[in-house]
């Protein structure tokens, strides 16, 4: 699998405070990678480092296979765009002027594409209105448009739906999905709104205390959060034989517990287990929401 971004044991210290503590991650090409974490987990610090705004104290990362200390990282960075915390805009310029300014910075030969970008983010009717008079949602969209100026194939968005109303959140979500599906842009998006991420992300990285706690795909997360009956038995090998006989889908968690992804008849199960010399100790319904799964990983 090809990875757009990999990091290896990233550390970042601000004085005595350690913001990142050996964070390692891999962002697959073409994915929408959601970085999930509590406030202060290190999401924004990570993004600042991979965008080149700050240097790591220890460790390294690679963009398109180019290490951060390699002078060629400059070329690799041209393939990415980012909105870090707040949109990077000139408040005294209109939306079009902001885009033209970014085109100049990037050395683009002409301003072709400015109109299309404005239409893509829904700012085509703003005219000469200055960015300082934009709503928060409009500024966010302008920030994304500026990030898209160099036709990047990797987009980094730091909490892009922060402060937006429900309509704004939907618009940003649909834009991100469109960019990923139609243009094949890999997106790294950080958020603490799990529900919102679950509608977008194909991969997740769960961060806590500056560390990557778990990386998993959307399918793996869905499997982890499925409704099931959690049973505790004296012998899961016997349980497996019984469940195979019943044709039920299950997952063995340990030598005493397992999850059954159906609602079995408890008395029939108990009888079948007894015939195999196994005792049914407890049955409980297990329904892991995304939030509860996240909390189980990082704690409250």
């Amino acid at each position, binding site marked *: 699998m090809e990875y757009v971004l990999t990091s290896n044991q990233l550390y970042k210290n601000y004085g005595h405070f350690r913001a990142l503590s050996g964070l390692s991650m891999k962002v697959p090409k073409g994915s929408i990678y959601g970085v999930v974490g509590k406030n202060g987990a290190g999401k924004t610090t990570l993004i600042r480092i991979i965008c080149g705004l700050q240097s790591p104290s220890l460790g390294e990362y690679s963009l398109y296979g180019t290490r951060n200390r390699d002078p060629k990282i400059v070329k690799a960075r041209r393939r990415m765009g980012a909105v870090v915390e707040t949109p990077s805009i000139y408040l005294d310029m209109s939306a079009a002027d902001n885009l033209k300014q970014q085109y100049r910075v*990037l050395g683009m030969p002409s301003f072709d594409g400015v109109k299309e970008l404005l239409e893509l983010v829904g700012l085509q009717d703003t005219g000469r209105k200055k960015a300082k008079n934009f709503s928060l949602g409009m500024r966010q969209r302008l920030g994304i448009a500026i990030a898209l100026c160099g036709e990047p194939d990797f987009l980094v968005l730091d909490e892009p739906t922060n402060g937006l109303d429900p309509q704004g959140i939907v618009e940003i979500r649909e834009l991100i999905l469109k960019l990923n599906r139609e243009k094949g842009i890999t997106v790294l998006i950080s958020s603490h709104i799990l529900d919102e991420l679950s509608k977008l992300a194909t991969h997740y990285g769960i961060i806590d205390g500056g560390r990557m706690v778990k990386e998993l795909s959307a399918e793996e997360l869905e499997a982890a959060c499925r409704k099931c009956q959690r049973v505790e038995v004296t012998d899961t090998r016997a349980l497996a034989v019984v469940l195979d006989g019943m044709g039920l889908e299950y997952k063995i968690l340990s030598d005493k517990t397992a999850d059954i992804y159906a609602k079995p008849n408890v008395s029939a199960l108990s009888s079948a287990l007894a015939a195999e010399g196994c005792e049914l100790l407890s049955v409980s319904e297990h329904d892991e929401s995304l939030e509860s799964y996240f909390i189980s990983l990082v704690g409250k």
Partner: protein
Amino acid sequence: MSCLIRAGLSRLFRCRGLYAAMLFSAATAVLCLSGKGTYWGDGSTPVCDFYFCDWLAFFPLSASIVTCFFCADDYRGGAIRSKIVAGYKKPQIYLSNLIVCSFGTLLAFAAGVAACFATAVFHGAVWLTSPSETVYVAAVAIVTIIASAAFALVFSMFIARPAAAVTAVLTVSIGVIFITSNTSGMLNQPKYRISAPAEDLELYESVLDGVKDYDEKVEIAKEYGWAKENPYYIGGAKRVLAYSVYLLPGSQSEVVYDAVDDAIYLGKPITPLLRAPVPCALFSAIITAVGAAAFSKKNIN
């Protein structure tokens, strides 16, 4: 980096600070010239050379205004981040800002010069420095101006809040003007004071009239007991320290002023001006290198 410079120049002309600096520059030039008149020769013709040079001492303030407002716009909306994300190294951003701010400061200088000469024409003033020396004075002024922009840039690139940056740079610039004008006065104190009692006045005039070289004057005056050590003269390590202040841009305008003064009153060539570009260029190089190196380590949020 050429793209950064082109983008910066495009943004410069939208920057309020540029027009504020041009207005400030023009206003101070008019005030310097109109505030007082100076007379030479037959005593009736104002000479604008000195007040042009006098006005140069205020120029670091114009440099501060352009630089602070220009850099503040980068920080205010966070636009500086998009340059770093685009792949530019921080020293490149620093240097491109220096070039653009220097250009903006030169535009403010041009506005001041235009106002200066317009006022001079209004007052019927004359310009006594020769054309070739005027070109040289202008070249030295430009080097001074770039040094002023480099000085202001160090503050502007590290203080993200625009109001705080402008306050800090203006405060330091005014402080520097004050220090350098006092330092200039101290450095200009001669080592010996030459004066004769009233009864020796005729002898004094006959002996020393026509002796232009200061050292020769002192030697002759010592023979007659007319030379006394000046208590206000600073020497040794203090003099070295005072000269280091001459590295600062504002003080270079004092050098220009003194050189023009000597050229007009004493007929001296403007060779002392050779002193001015070298410390200015050195100052610009050092402060820019230090500023760029420090900025490359700065964490951008």
